[in-house]
């Protein structure tokens, strides 16, 4: 019924067309509310790419999205749709906070390792119960992970309000982490540093009270490089290890996997633990690298954006990386929109939803459209 598309078209064109469709519909929405799509795009580009400050934020967001995107992808390769990255990332934040607050760290690099362990453990733990229920009792993982997102939010509110909030503080947040756990941000990294110098109107470098140069502070931090490593790691794991082989085989055909002696329970558990750990690791970026304390709703929806990122990136680490950058742009650009124009920041939620819709649910439609185009070209 449907013409088969060439592989390159399936990998490149389908997500691209989906993205264009999402952009088109968003533009229509903007027109409908009397805003100019072109102006919106200009503001977004200026706010998110043009200045080092802008892309400092874009990459910060992208870092989070890479982790959650990988989390969703890894599970997806095993045929599991993990909607719980949000909750797992929040729990990961808890792990980071506990590691940073209650253990003495002499240096950030050690703290980073410790916090990573905490983040991964807590994220994985939060994925473990839905995984176990899926593996052993056949409870649909989509529903259980949704439920666990809500439960995670409740757990965090309780802990932040009743346990972690320092005496005398009014907002529900943990104490600040000690300075020794502070991760280098881009403006602290030699080599990148000079990009972020602050200039006065006359073009001279601005100095602080002690006469040292002032830098623009961006939240992008060393976690970005960890995210790249995670991409490579996931790629190696999926396509160059036995585990990855078994995950993919299980994801393609559960029955055949059983024939090959691949245990459904083991793979489901392992893959969800990895997925949860990846989602949890996101917290290194936002909790340790940025806010340096645990806030309520720290993941800010990045877990859900992971779904869009994974779909858009075709569940391949390279694709996830690119899609995460795209969504980082969308997020930072959206923030610029909120500041500079009358367009509500929620526009980015709409775009995000549309991208998921076109890449994940209407992909057949996109393929059919492309199929027609290919046939038309052949007959011409």
């Amino acid at each position, binding site marked *: *019924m449907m013409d*088969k598309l060439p592989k390159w078209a399936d990998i490149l064109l389908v997500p691209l067309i989906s993205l264009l469709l999402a952009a088109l519909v968003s533009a229509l929405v903007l027109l409908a509310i009397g805003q100019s799509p072109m102006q919106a795009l200009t503001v977004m580009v200026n706010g998110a790419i043009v200045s080092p400050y802008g892309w400092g934020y874009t990459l910060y967001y992208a870092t989070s999205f890479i982790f959650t995107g990988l989390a969703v992808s890894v599970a997806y390769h095993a045929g599991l749709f993990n909607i719980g990255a949000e909750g797992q990332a929040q729990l990961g934040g808890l792990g980071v906070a506990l590691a940073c607050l209650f253990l003495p760290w002499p240096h950030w690099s050690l703290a980073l390792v410790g916090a990573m362990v905490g983040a991964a453990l807590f994220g994985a733990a939060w994925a473990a119960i839905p995984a176990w229920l899926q593996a052993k009792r056949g409870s649909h993982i989509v529903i259980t992970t949704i439920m666990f997102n809500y439960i995670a939010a409740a757990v965090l509110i309780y802990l932040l309000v009743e346990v972690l909030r320092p005496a005398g503080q009014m907002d529900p947040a943990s104490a600040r982490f000690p300075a020794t756990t502070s991760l280098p941000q881009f403006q602290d990294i030699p080599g990148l540093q000079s990009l972020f110098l602050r200039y006065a109107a006359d073009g001279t470098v601005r100095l602080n009270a002690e006469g040292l140069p002032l830098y623009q502070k961006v939240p992008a931090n060393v976690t970005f490089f960890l995210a790249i490593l995670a991409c490579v790691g996931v790629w190696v794991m999926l396509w*160059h290890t*036995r585990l990855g*082989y078994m995950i993919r085989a299980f994801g393609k*055909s559960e029955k055949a996997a059983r*024939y*090959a*002696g691949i245990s459904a329970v083991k793979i489901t558990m392992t893959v969800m633990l990895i997925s949860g750990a990846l989602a949890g690791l996101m917290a290194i970026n936002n909790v340790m690298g940025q806010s340096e304390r645990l806030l309520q709703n720290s993941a800010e929806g990045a877990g859900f954006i992971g779904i869009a990122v994974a779909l858009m990136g075709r569940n391949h680490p390279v694709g996830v990386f690119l899609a995460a950058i795209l969504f980082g742009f969308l997020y930072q650009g959206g923030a610029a929109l909120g500041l500079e124009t009358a367009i509500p920041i929620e526009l980015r939620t709409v775009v995000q939803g549309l991208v998921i819709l076109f890449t994940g649910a209407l992909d057949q439609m996109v393929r059919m459209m492309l199929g027609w185009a290919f046939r038309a070209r052949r007959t011409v």
Partner: protein
Amino acid sequence: MMGAHDTGRQASAAPFAIELKGISKAFGPVQANKDISIQVAKGSIHGIIGENGAGKSTLMSILYGFYKADAGEILINGRPTTIPDSQSAIRAGIGMVFQHFKLVQNFTVLENIILGAEDGPMLATSLGKARKVLADLAREYELDVDPDALVEDLSVGHQQRVEILKALYRQAEILILDEPTGVLTPAEADHLFRILRGLKDQGKTIILITHKLREIMEITDTVSVMRRGQMTATVKTAETNPEQLAELMVGRKVLLHVEKQPANPGRTVLEVENLRVVDEQGVERLKGISLSIRAGEILGIAGVAGNGQSELLEVLGGLTRGTGVVRMNGKTLDLTGRHSDGQSRRADGIAHVPEDRQVLGLIMDFTAWENVAFGYHHAPEYQKNGLLMDNEAIRRDTEAKMATFDVRPPIPTLAAKNFSGGNQQKIVVAREIERNPDLLLVGQPTRGVDIGAIEFIHKQIVALRDAGKAVLLISVELDEIMSLSDRIAVMFDGRIMGERDPATTNERELGLLMAGVSEGAA
């Protein structure tokens, strides 16, 4: 011999109940039906035979409006009729019993029967009427089923009756049955045939698809033969014989004969004692199987599909759990615990060519090379650096295997789904046989495989035997069993009915055993 040559004479008499002209249908690249024409006389039983994938089910589904033909014409009782959907087919008086039943499992029989044929928007009226009609039909055709039973609680034979009743309830004049006996016990099959004769006597027209020549000879009036999407012939049953039909089916003189030396059995490789398997529904599928296979021999297991052969393969292959004792090379295998899985079986020297290659044996979306590692992904020669899989090594190995087994096209990076069925089967057989296992479990090795490939695969199996390995062969094709096996065991209803020497037994004797007639009675 083609049915079309005497249309003129017949048309002047009663019109045909069904006449198809030039029907074609393609699924993507697969041409399932090619320019098919066929005529079925009113009040007759018309058989259709053909190998797997010949296009029989597709043709009937088109007639029933389930698929839409790409080209062609349908005439019902002489009138050109378009059948865009099943509704139209039902209106034209056609009923169909599908190979895979289309019943709602958690509905009652009655609900299943009225579904889509209700009288008015309220259920109560429909149910009341259906209950009466059903009672009448049951009496008339020996089609008793409890109208209030849940379908999921019924045996397969009874579910089939529900399907027939569904068609009759819709006052079908033409009834199509797609491989109705594949899932039936011989007694149930006999009962079915009685029903069909009864229907024929009432003037109904019946199309019967089957693989079994015996059934064709027994019950049909005319028979059409299909091969690779085409109709090769239509003949009067009375004027033909099984040999001729078989030849028409596969396109050349058959009785496959495999060149092989007499067996030279050595030590016992596999010993099975009192093996039992209970399925998820709690039905006992294997009721205490005992057998043994020695090195250098092929034990063939014959039987009607659904008598426990699949379960036997699966429990030996580690896919399902069972109780009893299984010894492999003297080592007792784990049938229930952690080591009752495919990996452990492979480690114990058992290779397994599963019955259904597309569902079990291959990952259709994986490339050929990935499939060659399937099940053997732990093999040391496929690893490197202790941690990683050596994809390069697997690809090289795949190229070698593809050359030996003449897999076409010999491209390791092609996805399994893009190979033809026969070549898919060759990949699986290559993977398993090349492991040089002590015991090869092999189910339906040549299902849907073309003649050339059949011979090749048979030779490989025999070669493995000659290399001193044990083979357990399961096949629904008696010919295959007869020509490959060194010993034949017959399974019926989860038990082994008896063992025969292929040199001294014959199809009749095996057939009786397969039908559950035990030795004493025979």
